[in-house]
Each structure stands twice: as C-alpha cells, then as structure tokens.
C-alpha cells in the first residue's frame, strides 16, 4: 500500500536573515525536495521611477544611488551616461578616467559583499564575511576621500564627475592596489579549494546557457555559463575601449562557478585600476557646472556593466528640466525571473545558497 504524502508549503518571510533584503518566498516541499517556488517582492518599492519625473535631472542622481545601494557608483554611471546621450555633453578625459576608477572600485566592493554573504549563507559563521567587509572598508575610505560619503555616493554628474580627487587619494589608492591582490589570494586560499564549500556548491543550481540567454540574464550569472558577454567589451563606454582586461567565464554554471567568476572579476578590476592609475591625464573633471540641464526632446537608453549585470536607464525627455519618463532596467529583477529553474528539485539547504549565488539586491528589484 503506497504511503500517502502531502507537500508542505513554507513561507520564507520578508524578514529573514538570508534573503538579501525584504523578499518573500513561498516554497512547497515534498519532504526535503523543493517542488514549487513563488516569489513575492515589492516590499522595498519606493516609487523611484515616479519620483524621478518630479525632480530635475541632477536631483535624480541622488535617487539612483539608492536603487542598488551596494553599488552606487555604477547606478550613477548608467543614469549619467543616458543623460549624456540625451544632451550631447561630452565629459573631459580626466572625468572619464575618474568614472572608471570609481566604477571599478565599486565593482570590487560589491563583489566582496556578494562573496561574503554567499559564504555566510553556507554557514561559515561570519569569518569570511568579516574578512570581506574589512577589505570593503578600505574601499569605502577611498570613496570618502573622493566624494565625502561612503555608500550613497552621488559622485557622478552630467558631464563628468562631481569633484576631483584630493591629493591624499592617489597614495591611498596605490596602497590599496598593492595590498588587495594579497587579500584576494587569501580569500581564494580560504575558500576555493575548501572541500566543504565545493561539496555544498559544485553541481548545484545549474542553469544552462540557452536558458540564461532567453531570459536575458546578464552579469556573472551569464558569464558563469560560458557566454563571454560583458558590456565593457561589447558596447564600450567611458574609456573601457582603451583598457586591457579579460572577460572571466566559467563552464559549469553552478553555484561554485558563479562565486568563482566574481572572485576573478575582482582581480580583473584591480588590473583595470592599475592602468587607470598610470594613465590618468590632467585636466578638468566636469564639462558643465550648471545644475539645471534642459535636454532637447528625445529619448535615450544608457547602459553599463554593473557588478550584477546590465543596468540600463531609458530616459524620455520632453524638453523640460525633469525627465518625462525614467525607466530602470535592473539586472537583479531580470536575473530573479530564473528562480524557479534555479531551485526546482533541489533540497532545502540548497535554497538559500543558490539564491545567494545569483546576487540580487532588493533595492534594484523593487525600485
């Protein structure tokens, strides 16, 4: 006589230590195996796109910081690039180099957060998290020198960067570039060959490449499946066409590969920073100092490679000082649509780990 079993539905509530923000997952289990997943989000919706219609173009920059609050610089950069396409203002060279420096520093910081929390979800009792945050503190100190704030930066403006770096910034950057590869190696030694990490993440949460392309996923999630798609190479902006770096890909597209791609991207970002540090020219950093920008009627789409994927802003202007429509293409939301394929059939213990490996940020998802 077969045993009658029943699936059980559990609510991984909005307040939960492992959900990277306020996010609700209704999971249906058959024993330990996940049968169905229903995400419910929108708890962090603040109406950013509507608010952007009431603010001037410069004031919207302060809104864009708070979308992906872990990677503010690239959020600013995407918006500012879209505005520059609308208005036709070209930033000076030094401004572009400073933008790239800020964006790459932000990439290192965001990947450190992703790796730290990924390992925290695996259960390594906060130790790798503390190491990653210690390194991130150095980057946040650099940001404090650049623009006075640590997380919500508002550093970029239409036409370049806000203000030049102070004198103390360059020796501090040099010190950071000398020490960071050692710390990246230390993280590598701590984790990449650790049998427990490998046993928990290898082969779990596999997403095939064609599924990712069809779902328009971007970022390390896509690159971990072997597709070498990086906007810095395919559609270069700022000065990326003059810089040498590799696009990191991996082949198996499981949790371990997504973590490893991020670790290697930290190294590539350090390489870019070295080149910028060497090559940055003198000059002004800002093309226009006016705060009220009145672009002509039109529309533009500006995109950057943020640490989480392709971040794009679609701006429609009607000739006034506020945008008519500002639409954010957030990578976290698009990557989140793969949640069912990611989690089906795996076990409860893998749920949190897989969810952490795609590295979403609820500020971006909910806007």
């Amino acid at each position, binding site marked *: 006589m077969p045993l009658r079993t029943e699936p059980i539905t559990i609510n991984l509530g909005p307040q939960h230590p492992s959900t990277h923000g306020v996010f609700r997952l209704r999971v249906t289990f058959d024993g330990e195996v996940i049968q169905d997943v*229903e995400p419910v989000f929108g708890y962090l919706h603040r109406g950013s796109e509507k608010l952007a219609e009431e603010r001037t173009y410069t004031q919207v920059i302060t809104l864009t910081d708070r979308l992906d609050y872990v990677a503010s610089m690239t959020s600013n950069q995407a918006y500012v690039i879209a505005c520059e396409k609308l208005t036709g203002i070209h930033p000076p060279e030094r401004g572009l180099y400073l933008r790239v420096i800020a964006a790459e520093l932000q990439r290192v910081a965001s990947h450190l957060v992703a790796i730290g929390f990924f390992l925290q979800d695996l*259960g*390594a009792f906060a130790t790798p998290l503390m*190491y990653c945050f210690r390194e991130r503190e150095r980057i946040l100190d650099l940001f404090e020198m650049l623009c006075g704030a640590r997380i919500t930066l508002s550093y970029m403006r239409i036409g370049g960067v806000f203000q030049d770096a102070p004198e103390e910034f360059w020796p501090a950057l040099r010190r950071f570039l000398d020490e960071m590869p050692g710390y990246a190696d230390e993280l590598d030694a*701590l984790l990449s060959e650790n049998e427990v990490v490998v*046993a*928990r993440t290898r082969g779990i949460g596999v997403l095939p490449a064609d599924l990712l392309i069809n779902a328009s996923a971007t970022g390390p999630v896509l690159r971990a499946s072997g597709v070498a798609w990086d906007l810095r190479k395919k559609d270069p902006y700022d000065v990326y066409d003059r810089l040498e770096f590799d696009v990191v890909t991996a082949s198996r597209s499981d949790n371990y590969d997504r973590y490893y791609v991020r670790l290697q991207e930290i190294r590539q970002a350090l390489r870019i920073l070295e080149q910028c540090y060497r090559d940055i020219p003198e000059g002004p950093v800002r093309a226009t100092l006016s705060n009220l920008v009145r672009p002509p009627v039109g529309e533009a789409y500006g995109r950057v490679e943020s640490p989480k994927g392709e971040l794009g802003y679609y701006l429609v202007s009607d000739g006034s000082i506020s945008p008519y429509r500002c639409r954010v293409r957030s990578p976290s939301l698009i990557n989140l649509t793969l949640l069912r394929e990611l989690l*089906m059939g795996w076990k409860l213990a893998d749920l949190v780990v897989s969810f952490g490996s795609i590295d979403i940020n609820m500020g971006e998802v909910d806007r």
Partner: protein
Amino acid sequence: MGELLAGNSIYRNVYIWVEGLLPTGWQWVAYFVAGFTIMFLLLNAFLVLTMVYTYMERRVLGRFQGRLGPNRVGPFGILQPVADAIKLLTKEDIVPAVADRWVFNLAPVVFFVPTVLVLGVVPFGQNSFLADLNVGILYVLALSSVSTLAVFMAGWASANRFALFGSMRAVATLISYELPVLLSMGGVLMLVGSMSLVRIVEGQRIPFLLLQPLAFLVFLAGISAELNRAPFDMVEAESELVSGFNTEYSGMKYGLFALAEFGNVLVAGAIMSVVFLKGWEGPVLPSHLWFLLKVFFFAFIFVWVRATLPRLRIDQMMGFAWKFLFPLSLVNLVVTGAEVAVWPEATTAQLWVMAVINWVVAIVGVVVFSRLVRQRPTQPEVRVFSSAAPSGAR
C-alpha cells in the same frame, strides 16, 4: 568509608575530620559530608570552567574574525558569562500549551546530567580522580548516548513541527556518529589492555596521538558531530528555516541546553587529552595545570575549526559518517589488532615502528576513502514550466 572513593585524598581527609567530630555510630553523616564536598567542588569547577570556555570562545572567535570579542562587561569582559547567566535566569519561562509538560521539563535535565556524570571517571591530575572505574571508556561512551535521548525528548515534547524535524535530524546524526567514535577507541583499548582511564594515562609511553593518528582523526570528526559543532552544526544553527530542537525553550531551560553543549566540548577535550595526549603528565608544571592546558588546547582547536569551515548538508554529514569515518575506524581496528598480536608486550622501539606503520596506513586510508565519499550531486527532478499558468494550490 566508601571504597570506591577512598583513593581521593580530599574525600579521605574530610571524612576523617568529620568522623572525628561525631560520636560513634554516626559515620553515615561523615560519608555524606565528604561526598557532598567533593561533588560540590567538582560541579562548581566544571561550571566555572564552562563559563570561562564560553568567554574564551567568543573572544577567540572574534580575534579570528579581526574584531575584539565582548569586552564591556567587567575588565576585558570577563563578567560577560555572568551577565548571560543573569539574563537567562530572569527570562520568562514559556511552556507551549500543547506540549507534553513532563517530558518538556525533563529534557534539559536529561541533556545536562550525562555531561557531569562523565567527569566522575576522568583523572584530573596525579591521583586525582573521583572514581577509577575499570570500565571507564565504556561508561563514557554509554553516557554520551543518553544525550541523544534528551534531544529526541525535546523535539517531541515541543509539539512544534520544525522542532521535530530538527530533532529527528539530530538523532539521526548522533546515532550515525556513535559507531565511528566507539570503534576508534578500540585500537587504544587493545594497546593498553584496560578500559580504565587512569590505566590509559599510565599506559602511554608515547602519546597515542602519534601512535594512532587514524583513531584521533576519526574521534575528532566524530565527536565534533556529536557535539553539534561546526562543520556539523546543521542541526542547531540552521540559518534557513528551523532552529532545531531547542526552539521552544526559553530562560534557564535553554540555559541548561547551552551549558550542557559548551560543557560537552570541555568534556570531549578532557577525554581526548586523557586518551590521546597522556592526560596530566608533563615535565615541570603541576599535573592539574597540564591537564587544563591540554583541555583548552583541544577547545581551541574546536573554536578554530568553527571559525573556518562552513556547514555540511545533512545528507553529506551522513555520507561522511558511513562512507568515510566508519571504514577508517574499521581499518584502524584491524591494523592495530594485527600489531598487538605480533608484538604483545611492545618495547618503546617497537612502539615507534608501530607508529610509523599507523601513519602510513592513515594517509593511505584517507586518500582512498576520500575518493569514495566524493559524491555527485543528485540530478534534480525538474519540471519544465511554461510561462503562463502558475501551478499548485495557493
């Protein structure tokens, strides 16, 4: 005078002194007073050491992570465990309405008592032990199984579905890891010829850490799982959903669980230092100090491992026990048995030869069995969803 305890000098002195104060026929009073004195001393020493250990763990874990531990309560934070105890004592004691009251209240006690009882046979220093049972190791291992029962009682009595899941996992883990722990002691018993812990300490000419590396490895891994410590703490530190068998406990009942858990670490350290590191023997310092140093050395190793390794999943834990530790302990048993059969009364030189053979066997065994335990992740049963209809009842 009770014979079993007569070897203990404190007991003897107190007994004689109290007996001298009483008229004849009242020896049972002396018996009680002397017995109570040594129990009191032992229990308090154990509890104070547990408190010291919790403080040490928090500080050392903090230093591993690049931060200080708690240092606000008292100078250098040494009163932090006192503050924790006061907090637990003053919390409201909640018992769920549908819980099984008797079992619910008994479970922390059943969890805590075996920890203390084990200390009865451990030699703390030269000629300093409570009782020299001639089945010491058997007594220790039997008592550690009783705490499994307490975990089961706690999960069942909580009448909470998640606590039950957690405690079932805990019971499965604990039972699986009993066997490698038991068998790893087999080699030591064969070499010494007795189960008494005092004899084991005396019988180590070379520390058994060098002579039985495989037994040490298996015992270390097995006892980490029995203690529910990282990397095997899936049972209690579930960051996902449930919080294990002690979900419904609050106040001092939870305090008893926590106390027993940290105390178990010290007891495991005591057993390991007695069996593998020659107990209280050491050159210059007094023997009690050597014993404490060795116990805290093992406690430090537990903290170090906890700071470094992430958790294993529950099925990986089972695989580790049955496919890696259990065969290794059998291999150790066979090899040691063969060696003892060949050299029954071994001289020190022959012991060193045995040590070399054992190390070679250990390395070969670890390499061979680690290939066996490397599992492929199970292929998921994936259902392909079209974009339209959601499935399942909401």
